[in-house]
């Protein structure tokens, strides 16, 4: 059906980008939402967000993606923004083992502040730097499998798998939502798990269906 107008969508999915400082979260976001990569991007202080509307099958989905600062002490501020997220990309830098070694801690942080039903993908970024790789693909894949996470390796620099990564996460969320929808009555607000008022309930959004956890 091609790209729809920005305002015309069936669902709003909130997705958060988490992971250590400097793994490339901001560039993954700008690659996905604006098809841009900045060599000279600024340090993210606090939280930023960006949106893009994509079509999956017959559903138009507005992905509201939140980019959070990776520095540990910022989590006091950033973790508040995990609330209501239905998807997460846990990003590490595959050329820096340390950023992968702490994935488990990030996962715990996420589950502490978001719903357990949240869709999570482990993302090894900077796959363009093969010669500097420190994290073997298989090792990361195993970790993802054992923890029930999706897994992909991406490069925000040369675009490899960026689109696919977000699409996979959004699709998985959509599948969950559709199942939920079949079993629940046809209410306007759809939820996975506990119900909560969403952010997007303006009167202008006629066709919007809010989803939040």
């Amino acid at each position, binding site marked *: 059906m091609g790209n729809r107008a920005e305002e015309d969508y069936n669902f709003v999915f909130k997705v958060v980008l988490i992971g250590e*400082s400097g793994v490339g979260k901001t560039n993954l976001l700008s690659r996905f939402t604006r098809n841009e990569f900045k060599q*000279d991007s*600024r*340090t993210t*202080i*606090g939280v930023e967000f960006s949106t893009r509307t994509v079509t999956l099958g017959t559903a138009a989905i507005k992905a509201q993606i939140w980019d959070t600062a990776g520095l540990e002490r910022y989590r006091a*501020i950033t973790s508040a923004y995990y609330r209501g997220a239905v998807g997460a990309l846990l990003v590490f830098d595959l050329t820096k083992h340390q950023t992968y070694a702490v994935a488990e801690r990030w996962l715990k942080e996420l589950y502490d502040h978001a719903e357990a039903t949240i869709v999570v993908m482990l993302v090894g970024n900077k796959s363009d730097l093969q010669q500097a790789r420190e994290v073997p693909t298989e090792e990361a894949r195993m970790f993802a499998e054992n923890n029930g996470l999706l897994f992909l390796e991406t490069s925000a620099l040369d675009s490899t798998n960026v689109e696919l990564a977000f699409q996979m996460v959004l699709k998985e969320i959509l599948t969950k939502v559709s199942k939920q929808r079949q079993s629940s009555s046809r209410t306007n607000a759809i939820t996975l798990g*506990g*119900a909560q008022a969403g*952010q997007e309930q303006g009167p202008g959004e006629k066709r919007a269906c809010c989803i939040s956890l």
Partner: protein
Amino acid sequence: MEEEPLVIFVSGEDDPEKAEERKKSEELRSLWKKAIHQQILLLRMEKENQKLEASRDELQSRKVKLDYEEVGVCQKEVLITWDKKLLNCRAKIRCDMEDIHVSLKEGVPKSRRGEIWQFLALQYRLRHRLPNKQQPPDISYKELLKQLTAQQHAILVDLGRTFPTHPYFSAQLGAGQLSLFNLLKAYSLLDQEVGYCQGISFVAGVLLLHMSEEQAFEMLKFLMYDQGFRKQYRPDMMSLQIQMYQLSRLLHDYHRDLYNHLEENEISPSLYAAPWFLTLFASQFPLGFVARVFDIIFLQGTEVIFKVALSLLSSQEALIMECENFESIVEFLKTTLPDMNTSEMEKIITQVFEMDISKQLHAYEVEYHVLQDELQESSYACEESEPVEKLERANSQLKRQNMELLEKLQIAHAKIQSLESSLENLLTRETKMKSLIRTLEQEKMAYQKTVDQIRKLLPADVLANCEPLLRDLNCNPNNKAKTGNKP
């Protein structure tokens, strides 16, 4: 510097051959001398050249560093008054604060900005002395640079992401990034509690653009310790949370419509103002504006951030109100707001000079702690099985109630004060009245006595004539009341 060539000839005096030889050796010697002189000259020239180049480089780097558009044009007279003040700076003389305030308001030439900041810091320190406990450890910059920091990785990751588009900092491991690294490393070693925190690199960067590394280190220490900016970077980031609350309260009290609009769209200050506080506006706003904000910070300290934030938001209130949803508001605050034109920025700066919010900030901070304590108490009391959503709704309701109650409390306090003062008034009036009554009664008694005496002295017939008159006299209101009481 000049040295004789180290050639020693063993010479025989009389031999003509030897004379010939001597001649030759003399020639050789002079040639040597010449060569050496020239060599020395060359070396000197090279040195001079290097010096020249260095000074040109310095000029060039100064030019590169100060490559930003100024907000507010600084008049020549202002420059002259600054020069005079800077002269005083060396003598550590206390300057009149009002006077400094006026000059600062008129502008700061960017070529003198670094010196002026150091001057302001000195003036501040002459007036506010930090208690010993809060002083930074006394370790020199050079000493710190020799050590290794545990924060090395975190600092390195941010080097290329601090003012990435500014010519001084953009070159990978160029002069700018190296200085920045040194400065951040030294600070992380000096302040072990804070270490390195994202945000500091922008503050350090702004300082480096205006002064040498060592001076920048001294000024970073000033901002962090003397003015207390380091609190917001501590690992628990508690102070930042308080600041977010204070900003929210300021909006609530002074820009209610805007506050409601942001609340309705679930936009809390931490979403847009965290970088304002953590980088002192340096990460998003144009350098000319940032430099101007720093001017005022060096004079007044942390509350400047609130003033600028408030002024920014209120100046754009109409446009923010036009944004209808969460996304467009955030977009406006993050992108459009920092992109305003120079004249708008000038207006903001002028406004900031006029503001005084220190009392409010203090009150809100106290309030925050009270609220926090109450929240904690109530959370102990709550049952854990209650659904989070319900608790959150109750929480937000309680927060709102709390705010309303606090407002009422403020009003009540004001009322009590006015009542107390009117009570005091009444009491003094009462005592005055009482004393008046006493004197009146005394007077009355005196009159009564006189009348009695007169009555005794007068013959009976005259007395009979006077009787109605005397009766009238007895009929004053006081007597009436008394007779009324005694039926």
